[in-house]
Every structure is written in structure tokens, then in C-alpha cells.
């Protein structure tokens, strides 16, 4: 049985690099959409306890936006894309061409957020698919804005069947002084992690 804790430095480097390529593609897509220069930092790959993840997002009760996808194909599992409230506002603000990024999210923004999640996750999956040669298909996104703890319970439960830890990829995008912190959870089903690593040439 595969365990997230068994990942070594080489594995993490490879996942970070995929994150980097994926986020790079995503930032380019976003920059094209809003006609602005977007800066990106090298993503961080972390293996964390569930409670630490909630802390990164400001505690279990802080409101966050989660966008969730089903992955089908040669590898099955899920992807979750998480944004804290301020990042959600900055991202939708950028997309809608607003001057002020403090506006509360309305129905249009929610829809925009789903689409951004779709673009970012799609970029990530397509780089993963190109690098591994595996066929990966992403479902339509499902958005939920609620308490961080409640949203995190979804990937936590999925990881919970095999491990007490989760694999998180944190990407930072920046437009001037406006920082967007995007968190990805890669949640492959039990044996899919192995297939992924094997096809990336870091496991046998």
C-alpha cells in the first residue's frame, strides 16, 4: 500500500517541477485573459498533517473557496484547488478588470472562480499528462465556499484511507502588490500515485 510519507526528495522534486510547469502554464493563461503581467514564484510542495493545512488557510473556521475535480483516465483521483478569501477576491477582481479588489463575491464571481480553477487545474493536469504520457481527463469543476475545515474534510477523508498526511502544492501568483496564494491538493487513488511516479521515471 502506498503511503504519502514514503515520498523521498527526488519524488518531491519531480512533483514540484510539475507544479512549476503547471503553474507557469496557468499564469500564462491568466495573463493572456487579463492582459497583464503576472509574476509567479516557484511552487512549494509540502507534506502536512490535516490540521497544519487548516492553519495555512487561517484556521478551521476561516472562509475559503474550494474547487474540486474528478480525475479519470490512466490514473484516477481528485484535484482540489483552494483559495483563501482575499486571494479569491484578487483573482476575480483581476479577471473582471476591477480597480478595487475588496468587493464581496457575487454569483458572477463564483462562476469566474470556477473557470479560473478550471484553467489552473487544467494546466496542471495537462503538464502532468504530457510529462507522464498518461491519459488524464478532468471533470467539470464543483465550487464550494465555506469553512476551511469543512472543505478540507473532503481531501482529508480521501487521504485518510491510506495516510494521516496530505500532499499540498502551494503556488503564489502576483499582479503588482496583489498576491494570490493558490493551493493544490493532488489526491490520487490508492495505486495511482505509484503509476504516476513510475511514469515520471522516479520509481520502479
Amino acid at each position, binding site marked *: 500500500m502506498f503511503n504519502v510519507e514514503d515520498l523521498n526528495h527526488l519524488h518531491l522534486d519531480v512533483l514540484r517541477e510539475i507544479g512549476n510547469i503547471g503553474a507557469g502554464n496557468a499564469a500564462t493563461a491568466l495573463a493572456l485573459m487579463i492582459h497583464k503581467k503576472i509574476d509567479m514564484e516557484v511552487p512549494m510542495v509540502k507534506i502536512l498533517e490535516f490540521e497544519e493545512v487548516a492553519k495555512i488557510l487561517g484556521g478551521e473556521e476561516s472562509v475559503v473557496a474550494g474547487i474540486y475535480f474528478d480525475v479519470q483516465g490512466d490514473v484516477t483521483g481528485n484535484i482540489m484547488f483552494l483559495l483563501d478569501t482575499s486571494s479569491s477576491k484578487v483573482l476575480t477582481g483581476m479577471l473582471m478588470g476591477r480597480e478595487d479588489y475588496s468587493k464581496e463575491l457575487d454569483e458572477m464571481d463564483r462562476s469566474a472562480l470556477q473557470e479560473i480553477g478550471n484553467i489552473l487545474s487544467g494546466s496542471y493536469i495537462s503538464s502532468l499528462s504530457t510529462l507522464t504520457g498518461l491519459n488524464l481527463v478532468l471533470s467539470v469543476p464543483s465550487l464550494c465556499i465555506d*469553512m476551511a*475545515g*469543512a472543505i478540507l474534510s473532503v481531501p482529508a*477523508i480521501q487521504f485518510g484511507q491510506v495516510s494521516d498526511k496530505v500532499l499540498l502544492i502551494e503556488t503564489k501568483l502576483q499582479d503588482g502588490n496583489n498576491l494570490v496564494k493558490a493551493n493544490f491538493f493532488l489526491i490520487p487513488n490508492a495505486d495511482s500515485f505509484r503509476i504516476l511516479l513510475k511514469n515520471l521515471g522516479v520509481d520502479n
Partner: protein
Amino acid sequence: MEKTIKVGMADLKVTKSPKVLTTLGLGSCVGVALYDRETKIIGLAHIMLPNSTQIKNNANKAKFADTAIDILLKEMIGMGTNKSRLVAKIAGGAQMFSFGSNNDMMKIGYRNVVATKEVLKSFNIPLLAEDTGGNHGRTIEVYGCTGKLLVKTIGYGVKEI
């Protein structure tokens, strides 16, 4: 000493009046509160999965409905409660994301609720109240002095069960 004791995810705690037990941001997980009105001993478990026997990685007993309720019961009896006086209240088990697909994991909230009720029934612990299902998160507080369970949400108000 702090009056409110926090119960984390896949965790459980037992205490007595006037203390309060709380668990934050229940999503698909279920919060199981047990209460003995005579000794005012309370217990709270934050379970993540329905059944420990179906999972290989089952070292953390507080993670599963069957083993968590069993331990909760033992710890409460250890503190001086009588099993016949115990009553239960549960909250959580939401489906946070909706998909058209037949992904079994999506129904985990519902399965957690069903499993929790079955375990309570097998121990003959009456279920007094529940606030389960839906598609929103819940923070709950259990009060040792009254046994009341407070459910807080974002956008769905506060209720007492």
C-alpha cells in the same frame, strides 16, 4: 484552566460540567456527542470514516465511527458514567461538493451518518437529536452543564439541538 476544550479532526475528548467541548469545521465528518445528565459527563468524537474494518490504515481509533464511539464509551465509563444513562446527539455528514458522477467518496458524509447511527444503536444509546446532511460546514459546541449541542454555520445560521 480553559473552559472550552477543542477536539481536532479524527480526535476525541471526554470531560464534565462546566466544561464545553468543541470541534471546528465539520464537513463530511460527523461529530458524535454523548451526554450523561446525572454526572454531567460529556464526550465528543470527530469521526472521518464509517468503518475501521474496511481500511488497512486504522491505527487511529478516533478516525472511525465504530472504534471512536467504543473508546468514547469506555473513557466516559472510566470517569464514572453509567452506560444506561447515556444519550447521543450528532451533527455533520454534509456533502460539500456535488458531482453528477457516481463517485462513492462523494457520499461519504451520508455513509458516516448511517454508520454512526448503527453503532449507537448497537450500544443501545438513544439518539436524541441530529443536524446532518446538506452541503455546508458546521462548528459544534457541547455543553457539560445542560447537554445542549450548538451548531454554527456560515450562511445557515446558528441552531441548538
